[in-house]
Structure formats: structure tokens, C-alpha cells
């Protein structure tokens, strides 16, 4: 039981050590970039895992809320808001969307819910693509002549790749910390109970529609967080980053890594974001083309041979009180 916690700790120590090491090798721009990207995906996958892994709701439109986070950040930033003001506002906006869209869906059966979320995801993308007045259409944001202001922290400008990596790392760590607290509360247990057997959960006095909506809404915090950071880091957002296949890519990470297991999720992200980059470097650019083909195949094989993922969920033993 202690093992898992320890493993997680070791993992973080390694990451932090690695980051410190990178600090001395500032010229490793590309590696830092990939790690930051992986960090963004970890945030997204952690959020999606709350819905899929803990609560058992298959969400195929999660990327839409990442988009809402990123777009709201880009819009607010060009209006002069700072990152630290944008962060809570964007999270609030994204969660509000998520809540309102989620509310009527909570009675739907699992596979129907999946298709409806897919629908919302596509509608969002189509709106981003077509509502020129707000989103500047396919050209993306910011518009010509506008910029996304860099993040400042104590009069310190974050403008290097490594500084963004540290920022992302900080938010990933904070997210994991928060998710673990939720996981180990009655709310986290209610999520899992719903996943395990919704009718039984309801019969145990759990208002399942409400709790599902809660899980659905909280998950958007992480999507928004990822979106806001992404917009500031890359300095540009456009609809093509938020396609249905991005949502599928995320689902793939969660399923592959291990639904319901934070460590598994991180592993899934590293596997899907990191490995292709590694193989690209070792095997050449050709490989990238086969990436998605391989992921599709992996999804099928994993669901059949190891549906619990590479690192399966492990329930924590509670300290007994006699």
C-alpha cells in the first residue's frame, strides 16, 4: 500500500531532478518543448480520467473544453488581462459551459453520452471555425496586430521554454495533489461507485446525476488550465488543434495508461507523446506518419488483452479504526 505512494514520490523526484539537469542544458530546447507538451497532455488526461477513469463516463468531446479555455485566454489576453487574472476567469467560463452542457446529459446511457459529447466537441470546433467576429475563424487568435501577453511572475517575465516547463510542472504537481485529495474523499469514492454500478450507487443514497455532473464539471478545471497555459506558451490558438481526433488521442492515453490510476495516466501520456518523438529521432521522420495507425491498433489490442491499462487502478487501503 505504501508502495504506490512511494513509487509516485520517486517518480516526481526523478522528474524534478531531470528538470534541474535540463536547466544546465538550456540548448536542449526541443526536449524541453516536448516535455512541456507532455505536461499539457498530462493535465488534460488527468481531467479526462476523472470522467472516464473514476466515474466511468466516456467523454469523446473533452478537447472542446480545452479549446474554450485556450480561446477565452487568447481573447482576454488581447484585451489586456494578465495570466493570473485570466486563469480563474477562464476556468470559471469553461466550467460554466461544461456544467450547462452536461446538465441535460446525465440521464443518458454510457454510449449515448459518448456520442453526444462527440457532437458537442464537433459543434465547438465548427463554431470556432466559422464565427469570425469572435474567433477569427480558421486563421486563429490573436489577430494581426494583437498578441498574447507573456506571463509575468513577481516582475519576472516567463519567456524561455524552460520557464514554461517549470510553470507547467508546477500546475501538473498541483493538479495531482488536488486530484488525490478528491480521490480519497467520499466524493472520489462516489465517482468510483457510480462507475462500478450506477443503480447500486443510487440505492446507497448517492444522487448519481448530481455526482456525475460534479465529476463532469470538475474535470473541466483541468481542461481550462491546460488551455490557458497552452495559449500563453504557444502564443497562438486555432481550431485545427481541437479536432475530434485529439479527443480520441486523449482517450487513448487514459485507456492505455490505466483508467483510474494517476501514475498510469502519466505513463500513458509519456508513451503516446514521448515515445513517438523518441522514435522519430531514432528512426527518422517517416515514423510520425505511422503513429496514429499504431495508436489505433494499440487501442484495440489493449481493450481486448489488458482493459485495465498498463498500470491498473489500485484501491488504497484505509487505516482501520477499531
Amino acid at each position, binding site marked *: 500500500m505504501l508502495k504506490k505512494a512511494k513509487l509516485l514520490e520517486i517518480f516526481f523526484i526523478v522528474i524534478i531532478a531531470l528538470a534541474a539537469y535540463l536547466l544546465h542544458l538550456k540548448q536542449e530546447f526541443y526536449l524541453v518543448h516536448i516535455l512541456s507538451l507532455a505536461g499539457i497532455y498530462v493535465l488534460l488526461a488527468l481531467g479526462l480520467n476523472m470522467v472516464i477513469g473514476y466515474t*466511468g463516463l466516456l467523454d469523446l468531446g473533452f478537447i472542446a473544453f480545452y479549446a474554450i479555455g485556450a480561446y477565452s485566454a487568447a481573447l482576454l489576453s488581447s484585451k489586456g488581462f494578465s495570466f493570473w487574472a485570466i486563469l480563474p476567469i477562464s476556468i470559471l467560463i469553461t466550467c460554466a459551459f461544461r456544467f450547462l452542457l452536461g446538465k441535460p446529459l446525465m440521464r*443518458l446511457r454510457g454510449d449515448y453520452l*459518448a*456520442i453526444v459529447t462527440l457532437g458537442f466537441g464537433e459543434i465547438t470546433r465548427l463554431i470556432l471555425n466559422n464565427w469570425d467576429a469572435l474567433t477569427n475563424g480558421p486563421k486563429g487568435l490573436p489577430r494581426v496586430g494583437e498578441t498574447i501577453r507573456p506571463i509575468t511572475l513577481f516582475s519576472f517575465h516567463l519567456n524561455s521554454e524552460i520557464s514554461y516547463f517549470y510553470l507547467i510542472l508546477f500546475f501538473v504537481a498541483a493538479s495531482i495533489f488536488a486530484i488525490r485529495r478528491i480521490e480519497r474523499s467520499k466524493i472520489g469514492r462516489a465517482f468510483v461507485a457510480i462507475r462500478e454500478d450506477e443503480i447500486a450507487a443510487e440505492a446507497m443514497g448517492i444522487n448519481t446525476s448530481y455526482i456525475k455532473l460534479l465529476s463532469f464539471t470538475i474535470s473541466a478545471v483541468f481542461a481550462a488550465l491546460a488551455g490557458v497555459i497552452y495559449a500563453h506558451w504557444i502564443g497562438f490558438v486555432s481550431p485545427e488543434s481541437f479536432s475530434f481526433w485529439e479527443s480520441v488521442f486523449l482517450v487513448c492515453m487514459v485507456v492505455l495508461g490505466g483508467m483510474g490510476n494517476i501514475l498510469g495516466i502519466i505513463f500513458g501520456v509519456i508513451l503516446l507523446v514521448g515515445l513517438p518523438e523518441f522514435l522519430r529521432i531514432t528512426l527518422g521522420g517517416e515514423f510520425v506518419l505511422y503513429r496514429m*495507425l499504431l495508436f*489505433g491498433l494499440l487501442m484495440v489490442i489493449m*481493450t481486448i488483452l489488458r482493459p485495465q491499462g498498463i498500470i491498473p487502478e489500485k484501491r488504497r487501503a484505509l487505516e482501520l479504526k477499531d
Partner: protein
Amino acid sequence: MANSAIIFPELVNGITLGAIYALISLGYTMVYGVLLMINFAHSEIVMAGAFFGLFLLSFFLKFTFFQNNLLLLLTSVFLLSMCVSGILGAAIERLAYRPLRKTNRLMPLISAIGVSLFLQNLFMLTLSPEAKPYPSVFPAVNFQLGAVTINSIQIFIIIISILFMVALEYFVNRTKLGVAIKATSSDIETAKLMGINTNSIISLVFFIGAALGGVAGILVGMYYGSIKYNMGFTYGIKAFTAAVLGGIGNIPGAMLGGFMLGILESLGAAYISSAYKDVFAFIILILVLIFKPTGLLGERAQDKC
């Protein structure tokens, strides 16, 4: 003001698209009927079918014999590509879904998405990431029926679709195998007890659904004159919407839903906004699922616990 000069071409276009949606939606609805599963990869069958049709057409058109005999050309192309699509559909079920039959309902869906991703990329990598032109088999001649203008390709698509739908209705209701499909669809356990080999029936359902999806793929190619590796997704989601609209699991419902969606979408594109054309289908899908999940003709009761 509804101007007939605009409404008729749009209506004809809508009915043509509707016929295609209806044909595809049969695959979703039949599979859902027997397995209660959304066959997400069905959209890639449509794409694959379009490519199979393309190969066959290009191949047969090399022979003057076929060039001079349109009926024989079309019959061979359709039948052969239906077989290949059908086998692909049944093979997907056998390999990617059957091992998951006893797990929870999300696993087959995830596997299906994996299949979809795989097939799309397979076709992109092995064939082309670009759109491929579709050979035109016969010229698009315009016909004037009163105020309605309709071209020969539209007529062909509508006739072919209706022909296959009628054939399917006949098969399901009037033949022994068809009745076995219906029995499996209404209660798989009871069907098993009655001595029906439900595994073969499920394979058959996937075969038929995929064969019809493949036909739809060819029709799309003929209608628009080009096909692409990622064309399946949009048709798939619209056909699924049609199936839900008509009442999932219900064959006549899928046909009704297909035509309705095609018409609604074309009129919406003409009168509201063409940029948001694809949004209409999604909105219809969401509204139907929320407010009337049994669809127009569906009578499937809620799952019992």
C-alpha cells in the same frame, strides 16, 4: 419567402443525401439491434467501400467490354465491392468486438474507435492523403420534371438506395435467415435457446451492414466525383444521427431518419447558414438523444436492471 427555384434543387439534393444516409444508417441500426453497441468503425467501412469501388471501376474500365456495357459494369462493381466491404465488416466484428462481448459497454466502443483510427490511417498511408477523383461512369444529364430539375446521378443514387432498402426489408421479414436476425435482435439469449447460431447471425448482420455501407461509399464517390481517406467520419455521424432519429434498432426508422436528415440539412444549409451545415445534424442528434431517445419509430423500452 420560400422560393421554389431554390427549394427544389435543395430538396432534390437533400433526398439524394438522405438516401445515402439511410443506406449507411442501416448498418448502425442493425448492429445496435443485435449487440446494443455503436459500431463506430462503420464510417470507415463507407470510406473503404468507396475506395474498393474506385479500384474496381478503374480496373473494369480498362476493358472495352465493360466500357460498352454499363449495366454489367455497375453490377459487377457493386456486387464485388459489397462482398469486400461485407467481409471487412464481419472481420472487424470477429477480431475487435467479439472478444469484448462480455465486458462493459464502453470497451467495445473504445475498441471501435481504435479500429476507426487504424483504418483511416491505413488508407491514408497506403493510398493517398489527398482526395482521389472518382471516374464518372455515365454523364450527368439533367431532367426536368415539372418545376423540379434532377440529374441522372441523383436518380441513380435514389433508385439504388431504395432498391437495397426494399431488398433488406424483404430479406429480414420474409426469409428464414432474416427472421433469425429479428429473433436475435429482440432477445439474444432466447434466440440461442431456440437453436439459432447467434454468432453467425451477428457476423451476418455485420456483413450486410458493411456491404450496404460500402455501396453508400461508392454512391458518395459518384455524387461528388472525389473521395478521401477521412470522408467516413462526417457520413458516419450523420447516418448515426439518422438511425437515432428514426429509432435505433428499427430498420424502417433508419430509412425515415436518413431521408428526414438529408432534407432538413439541405434546407438548413440553404435557408439558415451553409457554414453551419454540419452543425444541424449534431444538434438534431443531441436533441433527439436528450428528449426522445427512442426516436420516431423506436419502441425499445429502457434497459431493465
